[in-house]
């Protein structure tokens, strides 16, 4: 089985295609040179279909769609947009489409998109026409839930669809928290108990947290993991209280980071890539020595994996969409850096090698079958 990695960057779209052994990788692209690519997602229900979240420095945000495995792209006829504001209402405009998720396997053609400022959008025709999800975008609590905009505006991301139930959704807002819907987005409730929000005066708030990335294991959908601005967490539903599994990380490393990625078949295995959250939050590799950490016991313990990674003076950052796994029995793990490097491990993170250098700043790395 050959593998493809789609790489969204600040300056365009690239691809990497492997041989069967994942030893040789061939770089393709750039496509859409000069476009800012926030996310690239393959439709697991229809693998020839891919969607791109895209904008440029000058122009407004949009979504592009491929029906030929990324050989050609067409723009959505009606990209995600808030509804026109009435008199006196907040006039929001999508600044960037930040996140894309394919819908439930029983809902062919359904996709979700998350935006900045925080908005949720749905398409039921394969990404051609998008409608706002009013249950979230017009929720009376939304101005409070997404009130603490980061400098680029708050981001809605990690749109998770329960594989057992298309009505059951999770979303995350950075900054805002994790929210759950059991009626396909008509109503939402915060789901942040147990998460720290140590940047707020009251750390026990029901929302206002900063989840960086939330994942749900497809084979154990009641198992959620979260890499938060304030630690690494696990939640086993129907429980509602997140457990800070990052406390088991080495104290000198801490448990701050952006991405968190799942093993394709083992719900107890998760990889993270910590960044420096000390003092002024440089958000680089800690001490210039990047390392991936793996738990094989759902967060009870963590192991450092840095063989092959730079030993010193490597000061990159790995953003939340820029790390992924493939679907091999011994999965490959991949991450792209803000310095335009793509690092790969084909043995579950035990050893690493850089397979591409000199790309633009990498925003997104996703695996395609």
């Amino acid at each position, binding site marked *: 089985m050959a593998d493809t990695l789609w790489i969204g960057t600040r300056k365009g779209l690239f691809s990497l295609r492997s041989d069967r052994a994942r030893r040789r990788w061939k770089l393709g692209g750039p496509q859409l040179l*000069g476009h800012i690519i926030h996310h690239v997602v393959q439709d697991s229900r229809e693998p020839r279909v891919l969607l791109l979240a895209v904008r440029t420095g*000058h*122009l*407004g945000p*949009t979504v592009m769609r491929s029906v030929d495995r990324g050989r050609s792209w067409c*723009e959505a006829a009606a990209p995600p947009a808030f509804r026109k504001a009435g008199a006196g209402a907040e006039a929001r*405009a999508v600044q960037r489409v930040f996140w894309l998720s394919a819908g439930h396997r029983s809902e062919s053609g359904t996709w979700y998109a998350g935006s900045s400022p925080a908005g949720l959008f749905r398409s039921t025709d394969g990404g051609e026409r998008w409608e706002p999800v009013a249950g979230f975008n017009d929720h009376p609590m939304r101005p409070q839930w997404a009130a603490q905009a980061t400098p680029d505006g708050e981001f809605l991301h990690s749109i998770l669809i329960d594989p057992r139930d298309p009505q059951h959704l999770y979303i995350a807002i950075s900054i805002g928290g994790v929210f759950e819907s059991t009626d396909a987005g008509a109503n939402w409730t915060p789901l942040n108990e147990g998460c720290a929000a140590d940047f707020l005066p009251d750390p026990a708030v029901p929302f206002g947290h900063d989840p960086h990335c939330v994942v749900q294991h497809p084979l154990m959908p009641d198992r959620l993991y979260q890499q938060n601005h304030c630690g690494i967490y696990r939640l086993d539903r129907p429980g509602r209280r997140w457990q800070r599994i990052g406390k088991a990380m080495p104290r000198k490393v801490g448990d701050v980071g952006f991405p968190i990625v799942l093993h394709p078949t083992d719900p107890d295995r998760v990889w993270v890539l910590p960044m420096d959250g000390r003092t002024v939050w440089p958000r680089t590799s800690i001490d210039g020595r990047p390392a991936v950490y793996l738990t094989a016991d759902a967060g009870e313990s963590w192991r450092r994996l840095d063989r092959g990674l730079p030993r010193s003076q490597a000061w990159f950052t790995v953003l939340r969409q820029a790390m992924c796994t493939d679907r091999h029995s011994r999965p490959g793990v991949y991450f792209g850096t803000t310095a335009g490097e793509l690092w790969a491990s084909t043995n579950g993170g035990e050893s690493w090698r850089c397979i591409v250098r000199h790309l633009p700043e990498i925003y997104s790395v996703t695996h395609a079958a």
Partner: protein
Amino acid sequence: MPCTVRIASPLRSYTAGAGTVTARGRTLAEVLGSLEERCPGIRFRMIDEQDRIRPHLRLFVNSSEARELTAKVADGDTVHVVCALSGG
């Protein structure tokens, strides 16, 4: 009323590469609507869903900058779409 619209290079994927196209309308809103009919998708890249001109884009009617879509356009005018961005 016909007018000429000069298209900035980042938008020419919508005009089949043309730097100049013809549109019709008595206001900028009507001209952009006419342009959208000919070049689907181009308007939203310039104008947001609240009918505001996007931050890194400037529109001129002849030599006067238009800050609202209610700006008047006359027969034979030229609408300039100018992209303004700095940084790497």
